[in-house]
């Protein structure tokens, strides 16, 4: 499996899509940051770097970027049939899933961090951090970023599952695009009516993002963040294994 992970990293370095996505994210982040300056800033009450950093974590925009990433990164392996080549070379199906999931989720986790960081940077340059920038603030930034990556990795693992279910680029992108929209709709409708569904959604990696930006975090909240991500990864990999293990590879 280690060889497969090395291959995935090699593939990632050669794929232009990662560079394109990073540039798109930077451009949209900058655009979004400047629009917020014009739209949201009231005289005497500017958007500070700290506020925008916290708000940007709850923006679902990055999920659409990751949808495209999953399509071009994992879906393309089905379209190019390179997954077929790996299988016929004797690699275990589960190893193939793990290696792709590992590299994709970590890359996605970092790409998703670009948006809050860029928006925060622009707003901080324009209006300042909004508080005294001391070691506590640095620790806050690091904590939120780390937990953000953990949750984003969990969410990205769902996209791995979608890619192994759809097995091509367009279907993967469509399903991954639909996911955050469906999530929001179900959360705001069924989630409000059925308590159990509401609670489940509350513990999801997407919902937990709003808690990690709080100033003070209890150990139990941090534990829930890690558990939420781990359970999501486990379910995603298990489902991916189920979809991929007993299937015909075209």
């Amino acid at each position, binding site marked *: 499996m280690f060889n497969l992970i090395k291959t995935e990293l*090699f593939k990632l370095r050669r794929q232009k899509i990662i560079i394109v996505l990073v540039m798109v994210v930077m451009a949209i982040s900058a655009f979004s940051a400047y629009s917020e300056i014009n739209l949201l800033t009231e005289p005497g009450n500017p958007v500070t770097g700290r506020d925008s950093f916290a708000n940007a974590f709850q923006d679902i925009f990055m999920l659409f970027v990751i949808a495209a990433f999953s399509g071009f990164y994992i879906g393309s392996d089905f379209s190019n049939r390179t997954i077929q*080549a790996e299988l016929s*070379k004797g690699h275990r199906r589960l190893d193939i899933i793990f290696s792709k999931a590992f590299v994709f989720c970590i890359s996605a986790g970092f790409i998703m961090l670009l948006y809050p960081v860029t928006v925060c940077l622009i707003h901080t340059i324009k209006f300042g951090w909004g508080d005294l920038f001391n070691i506590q603030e640095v620790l806050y930034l690091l904590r939120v970023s780390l937990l953000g990556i953990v949750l984003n990795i969990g969410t990205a693992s769902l996209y791995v599952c979608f890619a192994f279910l759809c097995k091509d680029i367009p279907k993967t992108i469509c399903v991954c695009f639909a996911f955050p929209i469906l999530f929001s709709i179900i959360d705001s409708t069924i989630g409000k009516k059925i308590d159990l569904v509401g609670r489940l959604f509350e513990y999801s990696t997407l919902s937990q993002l709003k808690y990690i930006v709080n100033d003070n975090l209890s150990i139990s909240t941090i534990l829930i963040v890690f558990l939420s991500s781990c359970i999501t990864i486990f379910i995603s990999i298990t489902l991916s294994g189920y979809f991929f293990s007993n299937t015909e590879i075209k």
Partner: protein
Amino acid sequence: MNDYILQTIGLTKKYANMVALDHVDITIQKGRIYGFIGQNGAGKTTFMRLVSGLSLPDSGDIILFGKTQKKELEKQRKRMGCMIEYPALYPYMTARDNLEAMRIAQGIPNKNVVEDCLKIVGLHDTGKKKVQNFSLGMKQRLGIAATLLGEPEFLMLDEPTNGLDPVSMVEIRELLKKLAYEKQLTILVSSHILSELYQLATNYIFLHHGKIIKEISKERLDECCKKHIFILVDDVSRAAMALERVLNTRNYKVMPDQSIQLYDYIDDMQKVILALNEQKLSIKNIGLAGDNLEDYFINTIGGMGNV
């Protein structure tokens, strides 16, 4: 230790209501080149997909390098090189990077194998050209190069000459022959170009409607196809006498259309012409004739009506 690379016993695969492979028993012996012959939909690709692990059989066993368990089969597949249907390549990478990615995946420490394989298929000078800009023939060559990584003992190639120009076809054929001879490589190759397959393979497997209908060696095929000299003269009985008295052969047949089929002197037709001329016979037509692989295959599956 037996010399079998691959053996299938009762291999069966069904798709919905269609039986793609019906209790297929095949034995592939080491160091031979097997031509896999069948019409579209006969089950050739399905067979290769099952052996390479892309599809799962409904019943039957696959014994690869003497192993049959699922996990063991996965390990043994590392000793194989496969190209099924069309080459599996990263379009956004160069030929070199494609092979490099595959080298890393297979854990081959020697980096030189990439260059060696590119040289073997004549793609070492493609530079930074991306595979997405390659012609179909170049992609086929790169696909073959990819199967050669890691010095496999068994190659399984589905239509490897697809899209190749005649010169490249000859090159690939000679390359496969050379590999089989020098490295004792066993090859299972399917192709629609039966004349090409005839020149490449040492054994032939005929597949029809998911069933093996014939397995035959090249020697036996040549015998069955009965290469002969076709002779048409003005006097058949004098010609027959000339063959027996001058050339000392009785290995001929007089056909109902008054032509003669001579099975000796295939490589020395000049001698036959001289013998007939000595008897002052008027030769209307003379030449080499016989079934080819294509005719033989069509006859085996029951004539053109079954094609």
